[in-house]
Protein backbone atom coordinates (compact mmCIF):
# COMPACT_ATOMS: atom_id res chain seq x y z
CA UNK A 1 0.00 0.00 0.00
CA UNK A 2 2.82 2.42 0.90
CA UNK A 3 4.46 1.61 -2.44
CA UNK A 4 1.16 2.21 -4.26
CA UNK A 5 0.76 5.62 -2.61
CA UNK A 6 4.30 6.63 -3.52
CA UNK A 7 4.06 5.46 -7.13
CA UNK A 8 0.68 7.17 -7.69
CA UNK A 9 1.13 10.25 -5.48
CA UNK A 10 0.58 12.85 -8.23
CA UNK A 11 -2.85 11.55 -9.28
CA UNK A 12 -3.85 10.88 -5.65
CA UNK A 13 -2.95 14.42 -4.50
CA UNK A 14 -4.74 16.03 -7.44
CA UNK A 15 -7.75 13.74 -6.87
CA UNK A 16 -7.97 14.83 -3.23
CA UNK A 17 -7.58 18.51 -4.15
CA UNK A 18 -10.37 18.07 -6.71
CA UNK A 19 -12.74 16.47 -4.18
CA UNK A 20 -12.01 19.19 -1.58
CA UNK A 21 -12.58 22.00 -4.11
CA UNK A 22 -15.77 20.40 -5.47
CA UNK A 23 -17.13 20.03 -1.93
CA UNK A 24 -16.32 23.69 -1.22
CA UNK A 25 -17.95 24.75 -4.49
CA UNK A 26 -21.09 22.75 -3.63
CA UNK A 27 -21.44 24.33 -0.17
CA UNK A 28 -20.63 27.89 -1.30
CA UNK A 29 -22.83 27.52 -4.40
CA UNK A 30 -25.73 26.28 -2.25
CA UNK A 31 -25.48 29.31 0.09
CA UNK A 32 -25.12 31.68 -2.87
CA UNK A 33 -28.20 30.20 -4.57
CA UNK A 34 -30.30 30.49 -1.40
CA UNK A 35 -29.10 34.04 -0.67
CA UNK A 36 -30.10 35.23 -4.14
CA UNK A 37 -33.44 33.41 -3.90
CA UNK A 38 -34.15 35.04 -0.51
CA UNK A 39 -33.32 38.56 -1.76
CA UNK A 40 -35.36 38.02 -4.91
CA UNK A 41 -38.38 36.79 -2.90
CA UNK A 42 -38.13 39.77 -0.51
CA UNK A 43 -38.27 42.12 -3.50
CA UNK A 44 -41.38 40.34 -4.80
CA UNK A 45 -42.95 40.11 -1.31
CA UNK A 46 -43.10 36.33 -1.65
CA UNK A 47 -41.89 33.45 0.55
CA UNK A 48 -38.39 32.36 -0.63
CA UNK A 49 -38.15 28.88 -2.23
CA UNK A 50 -34.77 27.92 -0.80
CA UNK A 51 -33.24 24.49 -1.55
CA UNK A 52 -31.80 21.79 0.70
CA UNK A 53 -28.16 20.87 -0.01
CA UNK A 54 -29.32 17.54 -1.47
CA UNK A 55 -31.72 19.29 -3.85
CA UNK A 56 -29.03 21.84 -4.84
CA UNK A 57 -26.65 19.00 -5.79
CA UNK A 58 -29.21 17.71 -8.30
CA UNK A 59 -29.96 21.21 -9.66
CA UNK A 60 -29.03 22.52 -13.10
CA UNK A 61 -27.46 25.49 -11.34
CA UNK A 62 -24.80 23.29 -9.70
CA UNK A 63 -24.38 21.01 -12.74
CA UNK A 64 -23.92 24.00 -15.07
CA UNK A 65 -21.31 25.58 -12.81
CA UNK A 66 -19.27 22.35 -12.72
CA UNK A 67 -19.51 21.38 -16.39
CA UNK A 68 -18.70 24.83 -17.83
CA UNK A 69 -15.33 24.60 -16.09
CA UNK A 70 -14.75 20.95 -16.99
CA UNK A 71 -15.26 21.55 -20.71
CA UNK A 72 -12.77 24.39 -20.88
CA UNK A 73 -10.08 22.40 -19.05
CA UNK A 74 -10.47 19.42 -21.38
CA UNK A 75 -10.49 21.70 -24.42
CA UNK A 76 -7.25 23.23 -23.13
CA UNK A 77 -5.52 19.86 -22.83
CA UNK A 78 -6.95 18.57 -26.12
CA UNK A 79 -5.58 21.59 -27.97
CA UNK A 80 -2.29 21.50 -26.08
CA UNK A 81 -1.72 17.83 -27.02
CA UNK A 82 -2.78 18.38 -30.63
CA UNK A 83 -1.24 21.78 -31.46
CA UNK A 84 2.17 20.84 -30.00
CA UNK A 85 2.39 18.16 -32.73
CA UNK A 86 2.78 20.89 -35.37
CA UNK A 87 3.56 24.16 -33.57
CA UNK A 88 6.81 24.82 -31.72
CA UNK A 89 8.15 27.44 -29.31
CA UNK A 90 11.93 27.90 -29.43
CA UNK A 91 13.41 27.52 -25.96
CA UNK A 92 10.24 26.10 -24.33
CA UNK A 93 10.22 22.82 -22.40
CA UNK A 94 6.56 22.45 -23.50
CA UNK A 95 7.63 22.34 -27.16
CA UNK A 96 9.35 19.81 -29.40
CA UNK A 97 12.68 20.79 -30.92
CA UNK A 98 12.53 22.84 -34.11
CA UNK A 99 12.44 20.58 -37.15
CA UNK A 100 10.50 17.80 -35.39
CA UNK A 101 7.06 19.19 -36.29
CA UNK A 102 4.48 16.62 -37.39
CA UNK A 103 3.73 12.98 -36.61
CA UNK A 104 7.44 11.95 -36.70
CA UNK A 105 8.94 8.73 -38.11
CA UNK A 106 8.09 5.15 -37.10
CA UNK A 107 11.58 4.91 -35.61
CA UNK A 108 10.95 7.95 -33.39
CA UNK A 109 7.53 6.64 -32.37
CA UNK A 110 8.59 2.97 -31.89
CA UNK A 111 5.95 1.56 -34.24
CA UNK A 112 6.04 -0.60 -37.40
CA UNK A 113 9.34 -2.47 -37.57
CA UNK A 114 10.66 -0.44 -34.63
CA UNK A 115 8.32 -1.88 -31.96
CA UNK A 116 9.91 -3.32 -28.85
CA UNK A 117 9.03 -6.39 -26.83
CA UNK A 118 7.58 -4.19 -24.10
CA UNK A 119 5.55 -1.96 -26.46
CA UNK A 120 1.78 -1.93 -25.75
CA UNK A 121 -0.07 -4.64 -27.71
CA UNK A 122 -2.07 -2.18 -29.84
CA UNK A 123 1.18 -0.41 -30.79
CA UNK A 124 2.65 -3.75 -31.95
CA UNK A 125 -0.27 -5.19 -33.97
CA UNK A 126 -0.36 -2.54 -36.73
CA UNK A 127 -3.39 -1.64 -38.90
CA UNK A 128 -6.41 0.25 -37.57
CA UNK A 129 -5.72 -0.67 -33.96
CA UNK A 130 -2.27 0.96 -33.99
CA UNK A 131 -3.65 3.98 -35.87
CA UNK A 132 -6.37 4.36 -33.23
CA UNK A 133 -3.94 3.82 -30.34
CA UNK A 134 -1.57 6.40 -31.86
CA UNK A 135 -4.29 9.04 -31.34
CA UNK A 136 -5.98 7.59 -28.25
CA UNK A 137 -4.95 10.30 -25.77
CA UNK A 138 -6.36 13.16 -27.82
CA UNK A 139 -9.47 11.14 -28.75
CA UNK A 140 -10.35 10.49 -25.10
CA UNK A 141 -9.59 14.07 -23.98
CA UNK A 142 -11.63 15.47 -26.92
CA UNK A 143 -14.53 13.12 -26.08
CA UNK A 144 -14.56 14.34 -22.48
CA UNK A 145 -14.44 17.95 -23.74
CA UNK A 146 -17.37 17.50 -26.18
CA UNK A 147 -19.42 15.57 -23.62
CA UNK A 148 -18.86 18.13 -20.84
CA UNK A 149 -19.61 21.00 -23.27
CA UNK A 150 -22.86 19.21 -24.19
CA UNK A 151 -23.62 18.77 -20.46
CA UNK A 152 -22.94 22.50 -19.94
CA UNK A 153 -25.36 23.30 -22.79
CA UNK A 154 -28.28 21.22 -21.45
CA UNK A 155 -27.84 22.30 -17.81
CA UNK A 156 -27.39 25.95 -18.86
CA UNK A 157 -30.47 25.63 -21.10
CA UNK A 158 -32.55 24.26 -18.22
CA UNK A 159 -31.31 27.00 -15.88
CA UNK A 160 -31.84 29.75 -18.48
CA UNK A 161 -35.40 28.62 -19.25
CA UNK A 162 -36.25 28.55 -15.54
CA UNK A 163 -35.12 32.20 -15.40
CA UNK A 164 -37.10 33.10 -18.52
CA UNK A 165 -40.29 31.50 -17.19
CA UNK A 166 -39.84 33.33 -13.88
CA UNK A 167 -39.56 36.60 -15.80
CA UNK A 168 -42.61 35.75 -17.95
CA UNK A 169 -40.64 35.03 -21.13
CA UNK A 170 -41.31 32.01 -23.35
CA UNK A 171 -38.77 29.16 -22.98
CA UNK A 172 -36.14 28.56 -25.73
CA UNK A 173 -35.46 25.31 -27.58
CA UNK A 174 -32.02 23.74 -27.00
CA UNK A 175 -30.85 24.90 -30.45
CA UNK A 176 -32.03 28.45 -29.71
CA UNK A 177 -30.09 28.33 -26.43
CA UNK A 178 -26.93 27.30 -28.36
CA UNK A 179 -27.21 30.64 -30.18
CA UNK A 180 -27.82 32.65 -27.02
CA UNK A 181 -25.50 35.21 -25.46
CA UNK A 182 -25.75 33.32 -22.15
CA UNK A 183 -24.30 30.09 -23.61
CA UNK A 184 -21.43 31.84 -25.38
CA UNK A 185 -20.62 34.14 -22.48
CA UNK A 186 -20.27 31.18 -20.07
CA UNK A 187 -18.27 29.21 -22.68
CA UNK A 188 -15.86 31.92 -23.83
CA UNK A 189 -15.17 33.35 -20.37
CA UNK A 190 -13.59 29.96 -19.57
CA UNK A 191 -11.80 29.49 -22.89
CA UNK A 192 -10.02 32.84 -22.79
CA UNK A 193 -8.41 32.11 -19.43
CA UNK A 194 -7.24 28.63 -20.54
CA UNK A 195 -5.65 29.94 -23.74
CA UNK A 196 -3.85 32.73 -21.87
CA UNK A 197 -2.56 30.30 -19.22
CA UNK A 198 -1.24 27.76 -21.76
CA UNK A 199 0.33 30.42 -24.00
CA UNK A 200 2.01 32.15 -21.07
CA UNK A 201 3.27 28.82 -19.65
CA UNK A 202 4.86 27.93 -23.00
CA UNK A 203 6.65 31.26 -23.25
CA UNK A 204 7.47 32.00 -19.56
CA UNK A 205 9.18 28.61 -19.25
CA UNK A 206 11.70 29.71 -21.91
CA UNK A 207 13.34 32.14 -19.46
CA UNK A 208 12.08 31.07 -16.02
CA UNK A 209 12.83 27.84 -14.10
CA UNK A 210 11.52 25.65 -11.30
CA UNK A 211 14.20 23.42 -9.91
CA UNK A 212 13.09 19.78 -9.87
CA UNK A 213 9.93 20.20 -11.95
CA UNK A 214 9.52 18.19 -15.18
CA UNK A 215 7.48 21.15 -16.47
CA UNK A 216 10.64 23.28 -16.38
CA UNK A 217 14.04 23.07 -18.04
CA UNK A 218 16.98 22.37 -15.70
CA UNK A 219 17.95 25.55 -13.84
CA UNK A 220 21.25 25.87 -15.70
CA UNK A 221 19.84 25.03 -19.12
CA UNK A 222 20.38 27.70 -21.80
CA UNK A 223 17.40 29.83 -22.84
CA UNK A 224 17.55 28.61 -26.45
CA UNK A 225 17.46 24.89 -25.58
CA UNK A 226 14.04 23.59 -26.67
CA UNK A 227 12.19 20.54 -25.37
CA UNK A 228 14.71 19.63 -22.66
CA UNK A 229 12.82 18.68 -19.52
CA UNK A 230 14.45 18.87 -16.10
Amino acid at each position, binding site marked *: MRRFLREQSLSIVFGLLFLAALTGQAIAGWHDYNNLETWHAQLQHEAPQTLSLGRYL*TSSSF*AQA*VTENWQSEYLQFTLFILLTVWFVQKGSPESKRLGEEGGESDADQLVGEHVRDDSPRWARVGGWRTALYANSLVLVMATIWVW*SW*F*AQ*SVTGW*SEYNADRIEHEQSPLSWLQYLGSADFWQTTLQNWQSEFLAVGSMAVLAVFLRQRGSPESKPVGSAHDVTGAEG
Partner: protein
Amino acid sequence: LRRRGYAPRMRAMFVIYLVFIVVGLTYFTVIGLTHH
Protein backbone atom coordinates in the same frame (compact mmCIF):
# COMPACT_ATOMS: atom_id res chain seq x y z
CA LEU B 1 2.22 -8.75 -17.29
CA ARG B 2 5.70 -8.33 -15.81
CA ARG B 3 7.11 -8.92 -19.29
CA ARG B 4 5.35 -5.77 -20.51
CA GLY B 5 6.95 -3.78 -17.73
CA TYR B 6 3.97 -2.85 -15.58
CA ALA B 7 1.96 -4.26 -12.71
CA PRO B 8 -1.87 -4.36 -12.67
CA ARG B 9 -1.97 -1.82 -9.82
CA MET B 10 -0.50 0.76 -12.22
CA ARG B 11 -3.90 0.77 -13.89
CA ALA B 12 -5.85 1.52 -10.70
CA MET B 13 -5.75 5.34 -10.83
CA PHE B 14 -6.29 5.29 -14.62
CA VAL B 15 -9.51 3.32 -14.14
CA ILE B 16 -10.62 5.37 -11.10
CA TYR B 17 -10.26 8.69 -12.98
CA LEU B 18 -12.00 7.48 -16.14
CA VAL B 19 -14.88 5.87 -14.26
CA PHE B 20 -15.33 8.98 -12.10
CA ILE B 21 -15.42 11.27 -15.15
CA VAL B 22 -17.90 9.06 -17.04
CA VAL B 23 -20.19 8.73 -14.00
CA GLY B 24 -19.98 12.49 -13.32
CA LEU B 25 -20.74 13.46 -16.92
CA THR B 26 -23.65 11.01 -17.07
CA TYR B 27 -25.05 12.46 -13.83
CA PHE B 28 -24.79 16.08 -15.02
CA THR B 29 -26.18 15.26 -18.48
CA VAL B 30 -29.23 13.54 -16.94
CA ILE B 31 -29.82 16.56 -14.66
CA GLY B 32 -29.82 18.90 -17.67
CA LEU B 33 -31.96 16.68 -19.89
CA THR B 34 -34.58 16.11 -17.18
CA HIS B 35 -34.87 19.88 -16.54
CA HIS B 36 -33.98 19.86 -12.87
